[in-house]
């Protein structure tokens, strides 16, 4: 096994081009487990830790450019106001030790359906900046997850950054595990209200072969909000609408039975989380609207 430690992004891309089977290692919180358990014996490990820019973020007018290796701890500490959904999800990632090391790039690289960042990324509508010696391209998050633990990266590509729209409305994340702490989610749900476009986006984790959006639920809710003038009048969402939204979220899932929970429970729990997170985000939206009006 070789351990390559490129000092720059260009060196990293060259190394990846030369060794397309090299396994990139950022925080190491997934790759090291696989190596320790002998589940994976890569010929080459590509250590991205020395590439400073991967640890940087930039908050622009409309978007946040998040380096692939920015740790969850940094996201929680610095980006809560502009990326509330991702920050909330980051808060639930594993343990402080792991949050100090792991970042969104690793979650995207592994593309495990149980990764905590995915629902928030899907709900935000972000794009993933990937690069190779051939050039750079942006992959919309909706096209990023292509199969069980498979993503849209070509063998010679590396994840450089994630471009997330700055939150224009309330965002929430919720997950259900078999116990309180350090869970790998039984299932997880993220929701983002986008008042500027009067849309709603969602993300579901651990309830299908890949992280997915509940598109029918999003469309239903957007239409119902529009129809009732809720964006403007800030009224409470009728229970029937919330229930229908929850059912559509449940219906979007395609969970399997495994040791972390039965399929029917996952589907049900998703519905519960969908209703609750919708309630929380909508309450926050109404509160913001009220205080905006008062001001």
């Amino acid at each position, binding site marked *: *096994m*070789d*351990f390559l*430690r490129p000092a720059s992004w260009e060196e990293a891309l060259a190394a990846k081009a030369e060794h397309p089977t090299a396994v990139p*290692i950022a*925080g*190491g*919180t997934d790759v*090291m*487990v696989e*190596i*320790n*358990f*002998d589940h994976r014996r*890569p010929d080459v*490990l590509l*250590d991205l*830790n020395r590439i400073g820019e991967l640890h940087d973020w930039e908050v622009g007018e409309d978007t946040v450019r998040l380096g692939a290796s920015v740790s969850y701890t940094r996201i929680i500490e610095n980006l809560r106001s502009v990326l509330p959904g991702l920050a909330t999800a980051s*808060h639930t990632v*594993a*343990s*402080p*030790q*792991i949050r*100090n*090391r792991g970042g969104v790039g690793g979650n995207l690289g592994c593309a495990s359906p149980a990764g905590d960042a995915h629902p928030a990324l899907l709900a935000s509508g972000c794009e993933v900046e990937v690069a190779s010696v051939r050039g750079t391209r942006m992959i919309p998050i909706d096209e990023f997850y292509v199969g069980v633990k498979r993503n849209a990266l070509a063998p010679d590509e590396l994840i450089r950054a994630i471009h997330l729209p700055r939150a224009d409305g309330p965002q929430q994340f919720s997950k*259900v595990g*078999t*116990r*309180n*702490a*350090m*869970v*790998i989610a*039984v299932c997880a749900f993220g929701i983002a209200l986008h008042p500027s476009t009067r849309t709603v986006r969602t993300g579901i984790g651990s309830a299908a072969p890949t992280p997915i959006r509940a598109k029918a639920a999003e469309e239903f809710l957007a239409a119902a909000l529009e129809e009732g003038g809720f964006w403007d009048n800030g009224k409470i969402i009728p229970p029937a609408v919330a*229930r229908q939204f*929850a059912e559509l979220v449940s219906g979007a899932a395609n969970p399997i039975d495994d*040791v*972390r*929970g*039965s399929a*029917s*429970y*996952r589907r*049900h*729990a998703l*519905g*519960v989380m969908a*209703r*609750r997170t919708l*309630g929380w985000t909508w309450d926050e939206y109404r509160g913001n609207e009220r205080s905006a009006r008062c001001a």
Partner: protein
Amino acid sequence: MRLRVNGREFDEEPRAGQCLRTFLRGLGWFGVKKGCDAGDCGACTVHVDGEPVHSCLYPALRARDRAVTTVEGLAPADGELHRVQRGFLDAQGFQCGFCTAGFLMTTAALDDDKRADLPRAFKGNLCRCTGYRAIEDAVRGVKHTEEPAPGESVGRNLPAPAGPQVVTGTARYTFDVAVDGLLHLKILRSPHPHARIRAIDTTRALAVPGVRAVLTHHDAPERLFSTARHEHPEEDPDDTRVLDDVVRYVGQRVAAVVADSEAAAEEGCRRVEVDYEELPYVIDPEEAMRPGAPVIHPKGDEARIARPQDNVVGETHGEVGDVEAGFAQSDVLHEQTFRTQRVQHASLETHGAVAWFEGDFDAPDGRLVVRSSTQTPFLTRRALCTLYDLPQEKVRVVAGRVGGGFGGKQEMLVEDIVVLAALRTRRPVKLEYTRPEQFFGATTRHPFTIEVKAGASRDGLLKSMRMRIVSNTGAYGNHGPAVLFHGCGESFAVYRCPNKKVDGYAVYTNTVPAGAFRGYGLGQVVFAVESVMDELARRLDLDPMEFRRRNIIAADEEMIAPGGVEEDLHIGSYGLDTCVEVVRRAIAEPDHGEAPPDGWLVGQGAALSMIATGPPGGHIADARVVLQPDGGYELSVGTAEFGNGTTTVHRQIAAGELGTTVDRVTIRQSDTDVVRHDTGAFGSTGTVVAGKATLRASQALAALVLDFAAQHLGVARESCAMAEDAVVCAGRRVPLKELYEAARTADRELAADGHFGGTPRSVAFNAQWFRVAVDPASGEIRILRSVHAADAGQVMNPMQCRGQVEGGVAQALGATLFEEVVVDERGAVTTAAFRRYHLPTYADTPRTEVHFTPTRDAIGPLGAKSMSESPFNPVAPALANALRDATGVRFTRLPLTRDRVWLGLRDHGVAREA
């Protein structure tokens, strides 16, 4: 690669892909512990440039030019302890101490905000022993320890002797030794649930550079044994070979590769070629008993298997009275089937052993030393000597500090193969289980299926109890019969009932073997019995505690199990009524504890249990106390310390009897060299058996010293008394140092032995009560209040005993709420990591209020009883009863996971939408 560790510069090259933890341990920083390899347990936490990381997930090569701090470097250089280390000593925030280094490093990096949010801050650190209360107290600066005073030891909160080593990372656990020329052993395991090995080709494995030997069934003795360790080996079937030509579960040993490095041994394992003839298999115990099922152990009488052709390794059938007549006399009946799951001990130190030679083994004084993570050094030596035809004096078995056991190390799971490899290669050999191996290559709790029928009269009296119990012992029968028998004893006997009957079967299946585990079968049966008591009370419209009060045995009653009365078992003290009262007081305080969230269902429930203070058939301990040249004492006991605190108690007993302070008593222990014999640290015997031997030795030495002093001074014996560092004779103070000198001049050794055979035995009692809230939308259970009453007789060290109770409750809550070793349709374990097998974290563990009863036992040393296994036993039924009270639904299958609870509520129409 250069890096700085604890202020010292190192220039060493790690391997690519090697983690920082392994690298640091290789440099001799043994304070960094290996617990899981996956960033789940936190025992390996170190600081890199001041930031806490799991060193098992940190590539060693990344530490280039960085500063690493391990627990050994936590204290400032001035010789003082770090304030966090001080805190863990003051609160005794550890038991086995294996997790402590990680907790210290995590705690040391907490700021005030994080300290205020411990559930989140401690998400990355697991403790299996304490139940976390003591750790929280350590972080919060609560001091529990008291100062020693001469002759006043028993009943006081004195600290564990190993504390200073535990908090500085200098306590030496099993694998914390550097042995020159060490070879590493790795095991190739069976991919099949049942197969005959037609052929094994080791050629390619032997060709791997660094591989020294490959061992197969051709190299193993024919002799059959049991991995279970008991004083009387005939308690277990002889059904196991070191390496067998038939494999009976996925994960069984097939071959062992011994090499210069673990990596080479692993590579060797991958290159062993095995030709298997697959055989039919069975993983369900009921199916295994049916005619035509595959016979897993077609062996003769010498194996002591009850009915090999039916896969029944042991069975029990007993009836007192006439249960059918009892049912006919009953006004209410309840009948239900209960199921318990496989649970892993999950001690943070895995199984393993290191063997080396002292001198030339073939010379008369040459010896083999086996350092093992064991609860039974003496019984393991005995088994090794039998297996390999070695005289006992040629083998020494010694335990370092053991990082947790819980019964899992009352087995010889590794020492046999390590010794075979050492004898073969004549080199030192080490085997350290990985965390996954703990799940598929060690043992679990026995899963039980318990069909109960019970009846009571309108006036609230039990009339009849009948049970059919099927215990799944897995592919081997270690502890199978004994766990079944124990499960059917005190669980029945604690209730007065004229008619009792049991039919119990311990059954082989092609699954990972079950073994000894805290409670030893009682937890499983108590879950069923106490659930049924609750139901009977409800049918009678009686308060369940009142129903229990009417039916529990009184202090002067016989303890009758379906199998009859155990002759050497007595109620040496009786606190059961007080335990019931503690629960009733808790019920009468509805405002205490956490408030339930809006819309959640609230209920309360309790359960009680009884346990014998030691196993049947005798349990032997020898102790020896010797006056030292410096006027202190040396106490030798054979029993092992794995966090249960026996060392603390033994030292207290000795100091008390000798009129001195505990710091003047040093201890040698867990070593076949230090005393004649010790059955081991199991069966709740550390205080009552080894403690009694210690008491006897200490009393005998005190008498001897007084006699000698009186004679030496020519005064009356009655005028002499033991003091801290002297004997006071008629107002004159003779230092013990001087007496030692005088005795030496007279060619006498001031030393005494104590012995106890573990019989007669008493019984200890426990009761657990919970108030819970249940979210009808998600099935989430929140514990609002937890109260535990414990009758441990005279409590030798309340701080430590409380820790045993808290730890037992926490461990039982894991088994009640979410822990389960899951096997697939071929019996293969699918939960072989802490990410898939969840242990309770700090956030999962409520504070349990512990109440001791003011009893003094007539049998135990100084009035003490045991309190190590028993807190586990009433927890699951108490929680299930509280859940029943909250929801109206009786849950009969453990664990009570959120999805199961929600599905149960849905099926009974209790579930609600969000």
